[in-house]
């Protein structure tokens, strides 16, 4: 690499790299483009084989039809209620625990930290059966509570917030302590404002996880007016199996909110992966 900036092989390698990346990016984006393309076609054209990419004419009716055919608005509302509640809960609960584990010296702290992090090895799918029985026993089936309470805390979130609070300078807290501030005030007025970017990352990760969650609503919500968007779309698919334009219109609508959040807050998403991905 040293002093080889303009050689033929250097340029050739760069072209090959860019080619690989371009092909990869195409592979990543084509499925989404295809669902958008299908969603704009009438049923007949969508079945054309070999497939046609460009719909002519653009048929927007699939969107208006599914909007009235299934309670899509209600599903969006459900998803929003659940995802917002889960996000707010995690912001409070995860950051309180993260703060204590990072800043408050108390007996058993290290054990607690280890215990919480080790919960990462027990993801939700594997405890689906006992959690279902527990929710049934608590009367949390077929209501919002069942979709919210089990995911109000995330071990990953506690870990993320602990890492964030470790970076807050001790001197600030010492000064507050001399002023007689209690721990809650130090947490709220000094530490929390310093980790706002981390809170953003946490909020986005949790919101996305909850918005995309399929298994928990599947277990909890039996009645269709409680379904979230992903669950509703899957149930819809099982009924209207053959009408792919409807299904793709639903898929496009379901992807849109996350796509917008992702495009606007990209760096926070990436940051979330890199902080939790590197121990």
């Amino acid at each position, binding site marked *: *690499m040293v002093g080889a900036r303009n050689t033929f092989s250097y340029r050739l390698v*760069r072209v090959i790299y860019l080619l690989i*990346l371009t092909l990869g*990016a195409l*592979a*990543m984006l084509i*499925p*989404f483009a295809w669902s958008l393309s299908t969603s704009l076609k009438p049923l007949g054209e969508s079945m054309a*084989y*070999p*497939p046609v990419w460009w719909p002519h004419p653009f048929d927007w009716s699939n969107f208006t039809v599914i909007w009235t055919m299934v309670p899509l608005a209600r599903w969006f509302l459900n998803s929003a209620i659940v995802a917002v509640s889960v996000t707010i809960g995690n912001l409070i*609960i995860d950051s*309180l*625990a993260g703060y*204590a584990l990072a800043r*408050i*010296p*108390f*007996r058993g*702290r290290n054990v607690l930290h280890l215990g*919480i992090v080790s919960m990462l*090895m*027990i993801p939700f*799918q*594997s*405890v*689906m*059966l*006992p959690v279902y*029985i527990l929710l*049934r026993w608590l009367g949390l089936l077929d209501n919002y509570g069942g979709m919210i*309470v*089990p995911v*109000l*805390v995330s*071990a990953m979130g*506690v870990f993320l917030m602990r890492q964030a609070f470790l970076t807050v300078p001790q001197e600030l807290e010492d000064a507050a302590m001399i002023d*007689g501030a*209690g*721990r*809650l*005030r130090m*947490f709220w007025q000094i530490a929390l404002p310093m980790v706002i970017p981390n809170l953003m990352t946490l909020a986005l990760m949790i919101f996305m996880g909850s918005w*995309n969650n*399929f*298994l928990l609503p599947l277990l909890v919500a039996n009645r269709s007016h409680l379904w979230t*968007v*992903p*669950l509703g*779309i*899957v149930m819809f698919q099982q009924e209207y199996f053959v009408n792919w334009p409807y*299904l*793709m219109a639903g898929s496009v609508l*379901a*992807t849109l909110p*996350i796509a917008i959040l992702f495009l606007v807050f990209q760096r926070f998403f*990436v940051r979330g*992966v*890199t902080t939790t*991905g590197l121990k």
Partner: protein
Amino acid sequence: MASIEGAGSSSLPAFPKGNAFRRRARRELGVGYMFTLPSVLLLFLFTLGPALYSLYLSFFSWSLLNHMHFVGWQNFVQLFQMPLFWISVRNSVVFALVVVPTQTVVALLLAAILNQNLPARGFFRLAFFFPAVSSSAVISIIFMWIYNKFGLLNGFLSVFGIVGPDWLGNPSFALSSIMLLNIWTTSGYFMVVFLAGLQAIPAEMYEAAAIDGAGRWRSFSRITVPLLSPSTFFIVVMGIVGTLQMFDQSFIMSQGTGGPLNSTTTIVLLIYQFIFSYGQVGYGAAATVLLFLLILLATLATNWWFKRKLDYL
């Protein structure tokens, strides 16, 4: 929420003088517990507790509707004699064995390329990462359409004169189709993890290697790969945990049946069926315990393998 207010009210003005310091330390103990209490409680209730509860349930026969009664090891014995259980184990293990190495290698190569000084890096990172933030349910449905007998994939293959199968309807291809979907979804996510690791490797190392006459491949295999092993370890462990519990894609693409011919029945899908189709909570709990053991063993093996490799460096 009571804990938050409790913590606030215990904050009297105090600073080291005599045993005021000790008083503060004692109060800190309480505050520390109160701050962590909601997390600990919820994690116990919905993660650790259920894991222990499934161990308990695995020794009982119960249909959710009748009285449960103790059956000792019977659920495990029955499970071991059940062909469907072994099919699900095989499907999950094969799935993990193919998906984890592939997605790790793809993610590493993409990250290594993206880490070069190339144009449009931001766009590429965005494109690769996007599938990872999309809903698994929606992606599964989009891929059902692409994998259709007369879908996009077969349309593409027909350009080369290949007549593609009905990907999800054919037992020989259904699981592989889900593997491909999974690799497609997670590679970009793990690529971002690798990118962070790559940026921590000092550029001087590569310069020194270049002076010593090392080519691209040598510096990749002798510097990049070994120095990335903490990231790789994390990615492999997360990959194992994720693939061994695959559920959404199998459930959606097979309409909950694990078909065709049980070719997509994973352990977690079988657990779901034990509760909701067969009413056999005991079998489901026993399968849950065995799944934990499998994940634990796989993680320990990975740990051992990475440790051993690091010792040789």
